[in-house]
């Protein structure tokens, strides 16, 4: 009896299941298809790095050439420069954004005047909502060699000669780092604000009663409580340390060729290789190198976090 009934029952429940879930799966089709096309197919397209790029033939039909693109890429000085720039800028960004984000979040949460709180909270988010093109124009209004406020008003007022900002790479590490902090530090700050707001008020009240001063409270209550957010955000940034913000490095220096030694990163190099310089083979090798090393770094940093504090691991 059971032998005969079991398959029948299974069959009917399967068809019931199909009937029940088919409409749900249909809903997923557009999104799933989009990820397949926009994200998954290009992952396989990375094999182009081992081929002689031919736009007419496409990725599949371009002829294989082994590691030649990589050999050419790593023979150039560019490979070192773009890797160094990408890594050093990102390290500077991680430190500054974490430090400023936490500091300002603590200030904003502690400030007792409601209006002040509101104004500061709005200000830190504001530039984050602007495109890099706009930021590029603003930086140009400040540093333009002919019309910029620095060369035309500030330096003359100080009795100094105008400087050739867009011709000399040495100024750009500072300009890019300050610009990135100006635009981007609000994002982390808002995350830290919401995690500080989540701390039990009674912790601070108890500390107050015990006579702990502000600094002791920050060090012993706020910092440990927001540590999970700090770890998560830092982990995400380390995972993306091989990626640079294309807009920052392309728009802000206005794509000025004289500045490449301090403004060229893997992303700008790949773009220029593809669209301008025509050495798309080396660019595709750089793209492959970025994707794969970047992926390894995500896995590695997540593995490290899982060892020390499993709750904060991403996966």
């Amino acid at each position, binding site marked *: 009896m059971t032998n005969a009934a079991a398959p029948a029952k299974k069959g009917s429940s399967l068809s019931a*299941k199909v009937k029940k879930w088919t409409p749900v799966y249909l809903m997923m089709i*557009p999104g799933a298809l989009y990820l397949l096309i926009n994200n998954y197919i290009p992952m396989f397209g990375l094999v182009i790095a081992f081929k002689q790029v031919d*736009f007419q033939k496409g990725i599949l039909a371009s002829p294989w050439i082994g590691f030649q693109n990589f050999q050419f890429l790593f023979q150039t000085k560019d490979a070192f420069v773009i890797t160094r720039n990408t890594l050093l800028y990102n390290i500077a960004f991680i430190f500054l954004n974490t430090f400023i984000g936490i500091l300002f979040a603590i*200030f904003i949460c502690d400030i007792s005047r409601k209006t002040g709180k509101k104004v500061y909270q709005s*200000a830190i988010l504001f530039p984050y909502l602007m495109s890099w093109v706009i930021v590029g124009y603003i930086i140009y209004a400040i540093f333009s060699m002919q019309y910029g406020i620095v060369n035309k008003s500030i330096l003359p007022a100080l009795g100094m000669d105008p400087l050739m900002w867009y011709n000399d790479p040495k100024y750009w590490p500072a300009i890019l780092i300050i610009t990135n902090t100006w635009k981007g530090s609000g994002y982390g700050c808002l995350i830290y604000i919401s995690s500080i707001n989540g701390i039990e008020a009674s912790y601070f009240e108890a500390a107050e009663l015990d006579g702990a001063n*502000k600094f002791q409270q920050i060090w012993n209550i706020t910092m440990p409580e927001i540590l999970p957010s700090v770890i998560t955000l830092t982990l995400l940034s380390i995972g993306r340390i091989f990626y640079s913000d294309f807009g920052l490095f392309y728009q802000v220096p206005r794509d000025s060729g004289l500045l490449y030694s301090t403004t060229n990163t893997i992303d700008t190099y790949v773009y220029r290789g593809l669209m301008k310089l025509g050495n798309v083979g080396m660019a595709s090798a750089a793209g492959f190198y970025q994707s794969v090393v970047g992926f390894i770094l995500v896995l590695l940093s997540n593995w490290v976090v899982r060892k020390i504090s499993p709750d904060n691991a991403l996966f």
Partner: protein
Amino acid sequence: MALKKKDRGYQIAANVIMALWTIFIILPFVLLLMSSLTDETVLLNKGYGFFPEKFSFEAYSYIFKSGDKILSAYAHTIFYTVVGTLVNVLITALFAYPLSLKNLPGRKAWNFYVFFTMLFSGGLIPSYMMWTGTFHIKDTIWAQIIPSLLMSAMNVLLVRTYFATSIPDALFEAAQIDGASQMRIFRSIVIPLGKPILVTIGTFSGLAYWNDWNNGLYYITQATDLYGIQNLLNRMVSDLQFLTSNASGMSSDAMQTLARTPTTGVQMAIAFVAILPILILFPFLQKYYSKGISLGAVK
């Protein structure tokens, strides 16, 4: 509650530092606005500044009187933003709702399918070759809407978590007992109750489209009438670079480029007009954007 003395010192220090930072953030935008309002001859002599010797609305009236290209680019940006955002929110919600159902067959695999795209990517060149070679979107309107912006894995996960935690299961069960179809449940329960998160990802997506210049840079090379406002601004930068590098011998190419490049004041005015909607909608954007950012932190 009276502030203790040391607390007052801390309050003052915190306020002073934050006020200085706020000024540091706002001043560059003031410079942009003032530069766009400066008389062109003053601009050429004295450069960009906070206190124009002579105010002029010439740049703005130029945009509205003879800036056909500028207005058209602006209209295109509005179109891309509206269409892109609507489609984005719709397919994100349709994709996230099933993922939020606890007994969906293959749920784990689907979640991984979404999440993995946040860990690994093919990068620009394979994407470029696929979109141009296989889908032929170069110099078409699709180029401004489809690549990379139409749906984001991060938003799918945000919406999924919101649906799973904020809509009571009992509602779904009751609807199913009443014999409601999945599409009906989606329309009359999920969408209305999920409105806050859908508005949040709508602001994310809307800003991404409004601010996008990458798609135009990669995929619009000939059909410049498909440019959005950011592409137009970007084009003026590369035109100027081209002019400075060809400053000596004025070729006919350079002359043409020069002729279509607006004056310095007009450029700043276009940039200001491009951020105007963000400025006007800022209270609304801030409300939902901040909410979304703090939701994203709690993975």
